[in-house]
């Protein structure tokens, strides 16, 4: 076998030429081959892939941007919807309910509607009487306050404080 012949020829498995260790003569010659024109072709292939990668990443970027736009659009629509729902359904609905409640309260108390009953109602409902004409106060509740003499509100307030303390 050529392999053993070479071994015998060299006497030793290793040779040193110009300070370079070799196992055999010529073993550092590259035994691997590549198809003709491989490197140029491979370069072109890699550059093509890179261009595609670039295109893919810009498509990805575009997709992400579009998705973000869609998401913010949906969020804005939801917010607008919620506000509309609050203003056009919840608030009027609540006002009607309050008006009904007040009607019921007035009917229920009847002739007993006085400072004390009113004060306990306000305290129960957590209605502030500091400024009955405050815009924040429901118009229905304000109208209830208007049923009392404005000067008497201070008496009511005192009653409310006592009611609150008792709670």
């Amino acid at each position, binding site marked *: 076998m050529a392999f053993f012949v070479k071994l015998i020829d060299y006497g030793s498995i290793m040779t040193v030429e110009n300070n370079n260790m070799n196992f055999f003569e*010529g*073993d550092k*010659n*590259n*035994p691997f*081959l590549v198809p003709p024109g491989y490197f140029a072709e491979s*370069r072109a292939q*890699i*550059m093509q*892939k890179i261009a595609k990668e670039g295109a893919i990443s810009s498509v990805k970027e575009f997709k992400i941007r579009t998705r973000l736009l869609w998401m913010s659009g949906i969020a804005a629509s939801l917010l607008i919807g919620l506000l509309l729902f609050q203003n056009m359904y919840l608030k009027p609905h609540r006002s009607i309910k309050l008006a009904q409640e007040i009607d019921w309260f007035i009917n229920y108390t009847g002739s007993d509607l006085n400072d004390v009953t009113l004060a306990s109602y306000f305290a129960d409902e957590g209605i502030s009487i500091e400024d009955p004409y405050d815009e924040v106060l429901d118009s229905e509740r304000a109208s209830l306050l208007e049923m009392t003499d404005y000067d008497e509100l201070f008496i009511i307030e005192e009653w409310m404080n006592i009611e609150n303390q008792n709670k």
Partner: protein
Amino acid sequence: MVEISDHQILTLFLQKGEEEKAFEMILNKYQERAYWHIRKIVFHHEDANDVLQNTFIKIWNGLKGFRGDSELFTWLYRIATNEALSFLKQKAKKAGSRIDDPEMTIANRLQADEYFDGDEIQLKLQIEVSKLPERQKLVFQMKYFEDMKYEQISAILNTSVGALKASYHHAVKKIQKGLIPD
């Protein structure tokens, strides 16, 4: 022709619209070296071609974040080495228990490989190299076939020069032992 330095290429890469041009320069400069480095690890041309393409795609993707802590050459070699090793691991995983005799498989594949033109001695040497543990194999490839300095190998493999010398010594001993039948 004056070779453009890595620093010049990296500076060009950072200029808007010049990325592809700079990358092509890297490709021209390092493609062949990277290919042969990979080929000596994976042995077969088709495999080396796949690994080479993945390596350069990774380099392209990572180049924007390359901070220049190491030399471009070292960084590139490190990516190529890691890609080649993970390729081999995946291949071994796929092959699983189907390989009864890895030595025979490598020998048969190399002999049947139309892109291997080595004589019997070179074939035997490649088989012995393939039998080395991963790190010794890498050190041997880079030192023996690629004539790289220990300092360069140390930067690529992130190992001390002393440890590399020891690995190389062990690798040579094992190959010698494998080549001389008792």
